[in-house]
């Protein structure tokens, strides 16, 4: 690790944070015209966020991204996929890519668990709900959703089906679930679709999608390579609502049991 890398990452992150800090300062001092409560603490907090995020990205860049990208390309390499098959010509069945699906599932789950913005929302949700929503339960539900979404997205790239069929069916399921899910969870479930895909997930998942589209015969990188992220933002909505439905159902059963 070089110090210039550290400095560069720190500057990049500072560049992301700066416009936000300027905007907050303008609103605080020009429009509200009142000093911010706990100014010192807040500034220290911002410095922590800046440092923490830079270290986090640096660690990812060093340990995970190269390996994740390398593996995405190795797993989608024809030599690996077709190794167990004698006649290559007629053996391009979608099921032959099973390792890719398993990898997609595992990497989707584990990168989402590590996603910092999901942690932020989960912490806030458990504070607001007074502990009724467990931060860990929510994170696992979202991660499962992303995992299923990305595996299905990988299947879509392999099979070459148009993306909007999947997305539209997904929307219909979300709408149907909305009518049956507990009301409290709905906004949170909708939000969790958007937060899952940021710093950790996007680079690895994008590499998987582009690698897969390059390897599978007849797929265009431009048309089929994109879209995994869309799957990853759709499925958490379903899994979070399902999580709430299951917990409600179980709580209801316990209540009827204890009243007997």
């Amino acid at each position: 690790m070089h110090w210039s890398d550290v400095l560069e990452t720190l500057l990049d992150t500072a560049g992301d944070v700066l416009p936000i800090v300027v905007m907050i300062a303008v609103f605080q001092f020009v429009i509200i015209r009142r000093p911010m409560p706990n100014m010192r603490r807040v500034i220290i907090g911002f410095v922590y966020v800046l440092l923490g995020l830079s270290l986090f990205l640096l660690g990812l860049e060093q340990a995970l991204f190269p390996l994740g990208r390398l593996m995405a390309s190795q797993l989608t390499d024809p030599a690996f996929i077709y190794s167990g098959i004698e006649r290559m010509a007629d053996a391009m069945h979608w099921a032959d890519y099973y390792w890719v699906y398993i990898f997609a599932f595992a990497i989707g789950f584990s990168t989402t668990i590590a996603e910092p913005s999901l942690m932020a929302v989960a912490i806030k949700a458990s504070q607001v709900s007074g502990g009724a929503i467990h931060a860990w339960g929510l994170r696992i539900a979202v991660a499962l959703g992303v995992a299923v979404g990305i595996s299905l997205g990988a299947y879509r790239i392999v099979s070459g089906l148009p993306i909007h069929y999947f997305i539209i069916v997904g929307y219909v399921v979300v709408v149907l679930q909305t009518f049956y899910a507990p009301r409290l969870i709905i906004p949170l479930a909708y939000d969790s679709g958007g937060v899952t895909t940021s710093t950790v997930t996007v680079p690895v998942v994008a590499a998987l999608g582009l690698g897969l589209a390059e390897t599978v015969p007849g797929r265009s990188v431009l048309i089929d390579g994109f879209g995994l992220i869309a799957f990853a933002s759709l499925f958490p909505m379903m899994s979070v609502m399902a999580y709430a439905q299951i917990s409600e159902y179980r709580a209801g059963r316990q209540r009827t049991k204890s009243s007997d």
Partner: protein
Amino acid sequence: MPVILVVVFFQLIVLQQPLPNLVQLLSGVLLVVLGLTLFIQGLEMGLFPVGESLAHALARKGSLLWLLVFAFSLGFGTTVAEPALIAVAEEASEVAAGAGAIASDQAAQEAYADGLRLTVAFSVGLAILVGVIRIVKGWPIHWMIMGGYVLVVIITSVAPREIIGIAYDSGGVTTSTITVPLVTALGVGLASSIRGRNPMIDGFGLIAFASITPIIFVMLFGMAVH
């Protein structure tokens, strides 16, 4: 770190190749853990209180206009500089050049990428603005989101095919690690300072809006350019 387990499992057992650079891997993991701990600490000290205190102050001020200006500029300002969006916009401009929609020279591609970025940033600003109006008025979220879905489906059927994948992806990449806690705190703070609003029901949902509008606007952008 479950990510490590997955990577190690696939590397050793499925691909049967040795792990490159074990020392680098371990020091990277150490950095990730340290960074996350600091980040969470800073979240509780800095980002959450700032978002909530601003929301409270603006709600007390009683000026809907300033609240909406703040909402829009928060969405626009945090998105326009988002690195993930810059990367996606560049890729999209290559796609467009490849499809022959724009001239494949440097200037045309840059103009296209900038246009796309501004479109997405504008749509996120609009999303936060609409979301804040929703919190103030207390409208139920699902009708608005469903309306958004219907729009997405309708526009998908007429948008050029090359733009669809990118449009759907751009919904997910717009919300960064710093925007999410700020926007969440804004929503929750606002919902808890307006009487009759439940922070759980009304406070969340801003990010949901911010993930749908870019899909719509990027497809519209694609239709306008292609």
